């Protein structure tokens, strides 16, 4: 099975097969000895040619999050089918004319200045997001009409959470 892994801006090809009951992965032209063992719900020990790595692996919105040597890697994996779909441009088909304003940092919504249907100009304040004692004004990134509001005052939001939709005329 061929998998394409995207790590930040690098793209890696992996060829996964099974040899004598053991997983074999060819990566960047070499085929290391691999041994992956689960330690806890998120934690794994991976030996690669005897080199010991202690990883945390968990699925995320758009792939996998891997913690390794105190850094977090976002890995997007695509098999042949995924790549075909992408090539055909099917993924873009459903895109609408809405702008999604997302949370740049996690925090608390302390104020909302707009309502559904309001017309806004790029730069207008939409809401205030408070995080660890700092108030952050979130402004409209484009002009348009406010669509759905996905939050209410007092909500706690994650980084990347969809806050407000703006329909561009």
């Amino acid at each position, binding site marked *: *099975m061929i998998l394409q892994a995207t790590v930040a801006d690098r793209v890696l090809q992996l060829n*996964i097969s099974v040899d004598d009951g053991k997983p074999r992965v060819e990566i960047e032209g070499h085929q290391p000895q691999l041994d992956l063992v689960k330690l806890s719900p998120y934690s794994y020990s991976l030996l690669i040619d005897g080199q010991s790595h202690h990883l945390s692996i968990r699925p995320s919105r758009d792939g996998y999050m891997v913690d390794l040597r105190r850094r977090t890697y976002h890995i997007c994996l695509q098999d042949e089918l995924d790549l075909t779909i992408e090539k055909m441009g099917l993924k873009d088909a459903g895109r609408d004319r809405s702008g999604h304003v997302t949370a740049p940092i996690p925090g608390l919504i302390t104020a909302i200045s707009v309502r559904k249907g309001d017309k806004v100009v790029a730069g207008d304040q939409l809401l205030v997001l408070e995080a660890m004692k700092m108030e952050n004004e979130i402004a409209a990134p484009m002009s348009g009409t406010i669509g759905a509001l996905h939050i209410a005052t007092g909500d706690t939001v994650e980084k990347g959470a969809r806050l407000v939709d703006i329909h561009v005329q």
Partner: protein
Amino acid sequence: MISKVLIANRGEIAVRIIRSCRELNIPAVAIYSEADRTAPHVLMADEATCIGPPPSIDSYLNVDHILEAARSTKADAIHPGYGFLAENAAFAQAVLDAGITWVGPDPQTLELMGDKVSARRLAQESGAPIIPGGVEPTADIKAAEAIASEVGYPILIKAAGGGGGKGMRIVVNPNELPPAFKRARSESASTFADERVYVEKVIEQPHHVEIQVFADRAGNVVSFGERECSVQRRYQKIIEETPSPFITPEVKEELSKLAVIIATACGYTGAGTVEFLVDKNQRFYFLEMNTRLQVEHPITEMVTGFDLVAEQIQVASGKSLTFGQEDIRPRGHALECRIYAEDGFDNFTPSTGRVLELTTPGGVGIRLDHGIREGLEITPHYDPILGKLCTWGRTRREAINRMTRALEELRIVGVRTTVPFCMAVMSHPVFKQGDYCTSFIADYGDDLQTWAANNKDSLDEIAALGAALFSTAEKSKSPDRPDARLSNSAWLRIGREEQISR
């Protein structure tokens, strides 16, 4: 005598204080907001009382609820930790009025040293130089211009009521002064309800050096030596060390002497810190006094062997110091890295989420103070400090190597932390040489980013291999996508391990 201590704080510092209470065999009462019911300080305390909803203003800053908690648990002393109400003179007074012992200096001392103007005046009278220009704040542009031309450009404009870098700007020439002054004044007014600003001489390549002092009610005052705190981001410390790799023995001696004089002059009791700026020519200026336990007190404990919190409680209970200046003999070198829930490589953006995994470092020369546990939710309500990792070494180099090793061992999965950033600092040649000032992060931010990127690239393949093996194993388990080729013993082994692993 103190028979029960209520800790008016949360997180790592509440845990820190509980530990000393235990060693003194004094029961400790934790207070908690509704967001902190399962936080370690609640689990570790002898008793715990809820004092309100998550926002600090309704809980950890709610004086009435805290006093009520002390009354209902029959606590006869309150330790405020740092932050929250620690330097609030009105709170200290309310505690005393309720007949409860306050573990800290008198309210009058808090007031005196909490006001920048009176603190600087006292320092000056004690013989400590202050930064030229910075005696009195002003809202008057004419007065500002007069100070500026007297001390010489570049100058710094700084809010009188503030801190943490808000409303601060540097002015390089006289033309820039009027607009900069106007903006600083209005920012200061809106943020701190005080439109006055300081106009000060800019100190070149400044070092932040502070002296830990300790005093009892009998008038004994000692210095526990200095801490160098010049690795800062947004005017907040992130890495500290003792001894300072920069200041000369003469300066160190003089700062200690001045700090003791200042503490004596303000009638101090307990643990306090006198902060100085030291310029590139070893010229120093009094900055302020922190009238409470300092975040970075553990490194002083590591080199001197004293438990400062235990000593605070002893002094608060009326005892005199059982040691003198001659008993404080620092040994070796200690470093602290603050572990914040912030991404050090993304402008210290706060990070929230659940702690999915926590593995703590151990072995020789390590100290860890933290207030988290596996499964705990890190919320955006409070200060992002998760803990502090300290190392001790016979030499500075040994302490640095040990810190690198300990940072590698510390696994916190689920929230981003300053751990990788601190690792980058430990490997930076300027830091290694001990040749850094407060602009270190600003000056070398790119280097630190590069270090991170270099180390990241080499590990991309490993992370990708991990994800690929994981995803394939997951698919082979899932009944709706049976992949015959991969349903073999190797993958089953992973499945089996998982079943038994908890």
